[in-house]
């Protein structure tokens, strides 16, 4: 400890293995001030902009939101909310391409900017000392702050740690070439950054605070030194410029000489690292009650006329930033636009991708400055084992051997070679004379290993469930045998003596017979009876059951009759379909028509006019029936829910197929079950809402745990969506609600769950870094 401090005081630091010196190109942007951008027309705000979970939606399409208003709410510790970066109207909530290397789409809020830029009411805090630590942490969480350097780990989790902290390291290294966002932020807002550091100091109370900064930012060093002049605890540590000195583990090694054991977090060594931009965001959030809605983005590269750092609102599409900086891609056959730096950034498939909390750079290189960005993998030749990759690897891996194993998909060998310790920095691929995209091979291998591990976990679980089921079946079988034996004995006894029991048994048989008869009768007159029973709110379950039976029979009938039906019929039916106003009806009709068409293709058409006639008749009948039944079902379910909402006995109401006797985690299972049930329930509810738009009362009554508003949301959003997607969307929305409910049911579980989640998030962050 002493020696570490001595060395820090002497500005004599350690070094890490390897490292490279790619052309820095920071002069493109580091001389110009950060430019505030005018408001774009539309913002696209992804619900998830960090590692962890996405929050629950708080707004709906058509809502007008104010600047700084939260758009999502976090119920999970790993979720952080997103806020409206400016005032405007929400025009859509739909899937859109997000800032992720995969170019996949996720749920985004589309905000049409009204150019008023009206703030929500804010309560600035002038004195941090008046706040308790819990309040600060809560404020950080509510401001939606997640790590702004790399992977975007929720900050409030990182600062809410208990053990003694030796070092708080502020990562200002910014080792990636081209990027100067942190550099300029430090130059222009060093006071705010130091305020943020002070807040972190209050929260964590570390023994030392080290600011690690590379020596290629003299102005920022100056500014920081000035801002921290009076503070004993804070040391500005100027480290030599070398990529990747800004990696978490590398910076720790440089500043303290310590290594973080593989698979653990720095906190285990009493070290916490925060990015400078995060410090700035913290001070903004605490002192000015400004949530994280904008950040500095370096827009750079020689394909731009005016490369510059800008204050970009989160959600600003990349094309807006590029056009503001004079993007000129005329005469370029390929246009690589990279989000992040040239070493670890990813290229974008489209320019509608929005800026998110972790976006620190948009790079549009010209062919001349970065030919390899245009080549892709085409330049790859055979590895000659030159070993340069191993010389530059900051974690001292053997990239070359990893590459052979990754190509051969030899995962055990990859684990043996510690592939998981690779930080994806790209130094190896940067120096590879054979131009092998090493990092890409590792990423694929890592993803596949992760998937395999998940599959193994799943297999284990499946095995346990399978065994449990086998045991249960065995038990049931034994029980049944026992029962049969008893029954047989009882019957024998009854035969012998005409006891009252015998008559009872007889009556039971008679009752059963009667029931069957009743059912049959119901079959015959089902169209009318169920049609009637649906609108009338009967409280008896029997009707409901009847209706369902009827539905099944009707469907079966329809199926049967559909068999001989010719194809024309199906077409006719399809023609009739659009005229149906009720979407539900239409869908069922469509399904029936589909089934019919399928069947008619399978079987040779034996045609007859009477048959045809009959067929169409029953079709319409079936339509009506099905519709009515669906309604009835929904209502019955809703009712049931209402009655059993106060207690959690819903689970016992329904016979659940899976018994959890042998499962160790009984609570968790229950919760899950409840979630599924709730999902089904919620779905029925939603359907009902949709169908009979009038009764808000029912939904209000029904939702003790679930907020009425949300249910409405669900139904409304789903109506605007494409009807084909309805079931899908419904299910998803319902799942969200169900999750909430499940949580309420298993409050105890939540704590442990979140802990484990946190762990996995940590791991993910590490991987991402």
């Amino acid at each position, binding site marked *: 400890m002493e020696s570490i401090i001595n060395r820090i005081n002497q500005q004599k630091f350690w070094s890490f293995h390897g490292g490279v010196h790619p052309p820095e190109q920071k002069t493109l942007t580091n001389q110009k001030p950060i430019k505030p951008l005018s408001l774009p027309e539309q913002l696209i705000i992804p619900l998830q902009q960090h590692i962890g979970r996405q929050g629950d939606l708080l707004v709906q399409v058509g809502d007008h939101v104010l600047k700084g208003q939260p758009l999502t709410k976090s119920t999970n510790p790993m979720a952080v909310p997103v806020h409206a970066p400016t005032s405007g109207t929400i025009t859509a909530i739909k899937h859109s391409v997000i800032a992720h290397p995969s170019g996949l789409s996720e749920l985004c809020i589309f905000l049409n900017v009204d150019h008023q830029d009206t703030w929500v009411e804010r309560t600035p805090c002038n004195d941090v000392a008046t706040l308790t630590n819990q309040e600060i942490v809560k404020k950080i969480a509510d401001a939606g702050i997640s790590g702004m350097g790399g992977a975007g780990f929720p900050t409030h989790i990182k600062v809410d740690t208990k053990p003694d902290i030796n070092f708080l390291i502020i990562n200002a290294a910014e080792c990636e070439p081209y990027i100067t966002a942190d550099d300029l932020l430090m130059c222009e807002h060093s006071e705010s950054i130091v305020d943020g550091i002070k807040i972190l100091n209050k929260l964590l109370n570390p023994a030392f605070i080290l600011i690690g900064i590379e020596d290629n930012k003299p102005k920022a060093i100056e500014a920081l030194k000035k801002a921290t002049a009076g503070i004993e605890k804070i040391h500005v540590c100027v480290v030599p410029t070398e990529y990747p000195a800004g990696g978490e583990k590398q910076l720790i090694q440089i500043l303290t000489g310590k290594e973080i054991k593989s698979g653990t977090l720095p906190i285990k060594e009493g070290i916490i690292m925060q990015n400078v931009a995060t410090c700035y965001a913290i001070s903004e959030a605490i002192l000015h009650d400004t949530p994280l809605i904008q950040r500095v983005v370096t827009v750079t590269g020689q394909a731009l006329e005016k490369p510059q750092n800008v204050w970009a609102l989160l959600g600003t599409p990349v094309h807006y930033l590029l056009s503001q900086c004079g993007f000129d891609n005329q005469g370029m056959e390929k246009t690589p636009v990279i989000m992040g730096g040239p070493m670890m950034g990813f290229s974008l498939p489209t320019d509608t991708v929005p800026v998110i909390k972790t976006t620190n750079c948009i790079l549009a290189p010209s062919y001349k400055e970065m030919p390899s960005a245009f080549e892709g993998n085409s330049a790859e030749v*055979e590895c000659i084992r030159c070993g340069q990759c191993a010389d530059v690897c900051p974690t001292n891996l053997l990239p070359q051997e990893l590459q*052979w*194993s990754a*190509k*051969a998909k*030899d995962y055990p060998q990859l684990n043996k070679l510690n592939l998981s310790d690779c930080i994806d920095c790209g130094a190896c691929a940067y120096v590879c004379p054979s131009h092998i995209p090493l990092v890409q091979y590792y990423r694929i291998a890592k993803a596949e290993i992760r998937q395999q591990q998940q599959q193994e976990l799943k297999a284990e679980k499946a095995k346990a469930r399978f065994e449990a089921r086998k045991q249960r079946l065995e038990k049931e079988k034994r029980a049944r045998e026992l029962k049969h034996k008893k029954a047989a004995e009882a019957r024998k006894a009854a035969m012998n003596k005409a006891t009252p029991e015998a008559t009872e048994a007889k009556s039971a048989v008679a009752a059963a017979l009667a029931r069957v008869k009743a059912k049959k009768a119901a079959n015959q007159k089902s169209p009318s009876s169920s049609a009637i029973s649906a609108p009338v709110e009967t409280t008896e379950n029997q009707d409901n059951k009847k209706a369902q039976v009827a539905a099944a029979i009707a469907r079966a009938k329809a199926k049967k009759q559909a068999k001989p039906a010719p194809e024309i019929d199906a077409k006719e039916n399809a023609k009739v379909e659009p005229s149906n106003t009720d979407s539900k009806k239409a869908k069922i009709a469509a399904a029936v028509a589909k089934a019919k068409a399928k069947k008619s293709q399978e079987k040779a058409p034996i045609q007859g006019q009477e048959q045809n006639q009959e067929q169409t008749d029953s079709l319409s009948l079936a339509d009506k029936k099905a519709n009515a039944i669906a309604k009835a079902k929904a209502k019955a379910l809703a009712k049931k829910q209402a009655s059993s909402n106060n207690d959690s006995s819903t689970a016992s109401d329904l016979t659940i197929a899976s018994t959890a006797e042998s499962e160790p985690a009984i609570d968790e299972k229950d919760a899950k079950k409840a979630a599924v049930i709730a999902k089904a329930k919620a779905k029925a509810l939603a359907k009902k809402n949709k169908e009979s738009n009038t009764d808000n009362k029912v939904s209000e009554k029904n939702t003790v745990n679930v907020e009425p508003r949300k249910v409405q949301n669900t139904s409304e959003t789903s109506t605007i969506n494409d009807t084909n997607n309805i079931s899908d969307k419904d299910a998803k929305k319902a799942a969200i609600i169900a999750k909430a409910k499940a949580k309420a049911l298993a409050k105890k579980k939540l704590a442990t769950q979140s802990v484990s989640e946190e762990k996995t998030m940590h791991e993910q962050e590490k991987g991402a870094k």
Partner: protein
Amino acid sequence: MTDYLLLLVATVLVNNFVLVQFLGLCPFMGVSSRTETAIGMSFATIFVMTVASLLSYLVTTYLLVPLNIEYLTTMSFILVIAVVVQFTEMVVHKTSASLYRLLGIFLPLITTNCAVLGVALLNLRSHHNFFESIIYGFGASVGFSLVLVMFSAMREKLANADVPTPFKGAAIAMITAGLMSLAFMGFTGLVKL
């Protein structure tokens, strides 16, 4: 002492059983696809060959020669070797089930490994004394193990190589063994006994 040392060097390198005398090629090709297996096999073979050459010396000197039944040499050697191999197999099975499975058929096949019988017979032919026999057996097996382990490491590396299809697998392994033999020619004349 120097003689023994030279004998050892000669058997390990100069007259390497596998690459120079071409004995024991079956397990050399068979269990060299993984280093781990090869090392296991090496230990098993070292044990078997050393003990077999010791026992065969004893059997020859104290049974066959006094009783004048040298014509049964081969038979008695086979008996000795078979017992030692069986014993080794049991021990390996008990101590390391995975190694047992990895070695598979090659473990009992040490019995028919010509190197083992070869060691016993060559001992007899070169009129080695008790210690020489042991050293010869040990040296031969160490030489066998050395090239086996090296070869297995090479084959692991080769597993990822882009070998033309007709030469994949055993073919390229044979070529590699040939080239190794070529390299071992460099030891020719190193020790003059």
